[in-house]
């Protein structure tokens, strides 16, 4: 009997040995959003530098910061984070300064350089890499596109039971705020009181509060027709399947999400990390990131236009960006207290 027990052990040990021996010369540890986990994005960099990029996904800046707090210096090399949160994270000492000229932003969409957000006291800590919108995604076949010109349609009763809420508090609270006439920048604890009632009404009118996949499933199968908080990042991957899935920025406006990438303070592979950032912001990296398997999004570097196909650019609505950018507002940037209040409100909404 013992020999029978040892057999799987032997196999396991052999497997362990084989996986370690396969490991590349170097490693780069990146704390990222799920779009960076796409092998199609990482492979060219890994091959060019003979390194292995280890990625760990997180959601929400607070959770990311917790992971950094619990790590030791050198555990992480690269961080992807909400552009609006770069200042907070840098102030907490988790980001290393990016030397002048690490990334050439001359070919960026001017609105997306976001120097204000990516730097603290004149020191740059990160660069923008990708952006998009949290607005309304809907099914053209079931929803009158004209209705989608106003956020108010969601509260009109016409689409009750056919709405899904994207399960991320910042953009959705931002959108509910816009509907109530509050700018994202003005979303403080007092404003949260104001939007509480419309938020609960929205929950009552909606069928589910769901993450990316559940939202996609629900939209694709016709269980819901509208997703508040959705956008091109959600419908683009489904485009081939169901061309009726569309998105728009209503009259009240939409939320602009932008993600930045920076080097984590304490890294022992600073040069490689910078090299990775240069790759991600290069036209090729940008094109791959824009069409990553987890979600699509506009590249911050307009030079990616040369690499992306016309079809891809059409799905991303490359040519409409000027208009969209003009109408979209940045994510709310809550302080710790407001953030807690927002999350409490969100929990209350889920439990209602």
């Amino acid at each position, binding site marked *: *009997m013992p020999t029978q027990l040892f057999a*799987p052990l032997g196999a396991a040990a052999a497997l362990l040995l084989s996986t370690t021996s396969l490991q590349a010369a170097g490693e780069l540890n990146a704390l990222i959003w799920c779009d960076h*986990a796409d*092998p199609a994005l990482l492979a060219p960099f890994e091959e060019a530098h003979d390194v292995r990029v280890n990625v760990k996904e997180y959601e929400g800046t607070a959770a990311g910061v917790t992971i950094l707090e619990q790590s*030791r210096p050198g555990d992480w090399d690269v961080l992807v984070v909400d552009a609006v949160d770069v200042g907070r994270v840098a102030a907490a000492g988790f980001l290393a300064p990016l030397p002048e000229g690490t990334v050439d932003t001359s070919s960026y969409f001017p609105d997306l350089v976001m120097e204000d957000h990516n730097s603290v006291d004149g020191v740059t800590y990160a660069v923008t890499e990708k952006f998009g919108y949290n607005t309304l995604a809907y099914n053209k076949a079931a929803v009158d596109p004209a209705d989608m010109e106003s956020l108010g349609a969601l509260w009109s009763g016409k689409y009750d039971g056919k709405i899904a809420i994207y399960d991320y508090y910042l953009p959705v609270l931002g959108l509910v705020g816009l509907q109530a006439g509050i700018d994202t920048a003005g979303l403080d604890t007092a404003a949260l009181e104001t939007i509480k009632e419309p938020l609960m009404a929205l929950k009552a009118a909606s069928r589910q509060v769901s993450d990316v996949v559940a939202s996609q499933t629900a939209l694709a199968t016709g269980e819901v027709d509208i997703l508040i908080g959705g956008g091109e990042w959600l419908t683009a*991957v489904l485009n081939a399947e169901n061309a009726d899935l569309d998105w728009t920025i209503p009259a009240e406006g939409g939320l602009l999400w932008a993600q930045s990438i920076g080097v984590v303070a304490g890294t022992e592979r600073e040069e490689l990390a910078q090299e990775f950032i240069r790759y991600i912001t290069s036209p090729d990296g940008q094109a791959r990131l824009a069409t990553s398997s987890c979600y699509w999004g506009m590249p911050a570097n307009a030079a990616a236009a040369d690499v992306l196909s016309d079809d891809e650019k059409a799905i991303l609505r490359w040519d409409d960006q000027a208009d969209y950018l003009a109408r979209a507002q940045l994510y709310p940037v809550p302080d710790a207290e407001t953030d807690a209040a927002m999350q409490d409100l969100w929990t209350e909404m889920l439990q209602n």
Partner: protein
Amino acid sequence: MRPRLGSPLAWIYLAAMFTFILLPVITLVVFSFQDGRLPVPPFKGATLDWYAKVLSDRAMMEALGNSLLVAALSAFVSLLLGFLAASGLARVLLPGSVLMRGLLIAPMTVSYLIIALGLLQMFNQIGLRPSLLATGIGHVVINLPLCFAIIYAAIGAHQRNALRAARDLGAAEWQVLLYVAAPMLAPSLAAAYFLAFTFSWDEFIIAFLLTRFDVTLPVEIWSMLRSGLSPETNAVGSLVFLVSVLIVVTLELSIFRKARK
């Protein structure tokens, strides 16, 4: 009780329950062949593309290897510790042995989430990074009670006397365990190992909270689920299912059938 092919009600119930039980797996497998982006009806035709995609998915294959590794090793450690503890407690009445048994069994009555959260915090404090090692430690915590209980229950008066006889005939401690206890309890040891392996293989929340890059299969499937709807998820699930069933049927036909004779 003699089998009576009485009322058809029983058979209708049986059929209904089997439908309920098997429906999701059948759906899962059928739509893993879906020739389209969405694994929901209508069925658009069959393709093996998704299987090809899974098998060429580096992260998925590594997760598979990690899962095998963690399951094999953690099940072995659980088995070893459980076996030693069961032989110890079955051998002499130790002071506080009820308490000891209670402590060894206790993790069985605790939600995995709580075990995971506790370990996460403790590992943070002592500076052990989330890793396969951390996950394996957690899996031993949940599987040790299982192995201990199974083996302890298998040691009756007869086994106890045989162990005594072995010591009386001059066997050293390790010889008693290796030459007498282990072979005598082989069916229970095999069952315990098999169960522990399965539990570790399928465990999600501990692995989710206690790994960083080298994740296990359930965690990888979970992140795949969260990053997009795709028949690829069906394909992974079907592969795991078919391979497991194959192993179970093989075991059923070989070892366990033999053991029952």
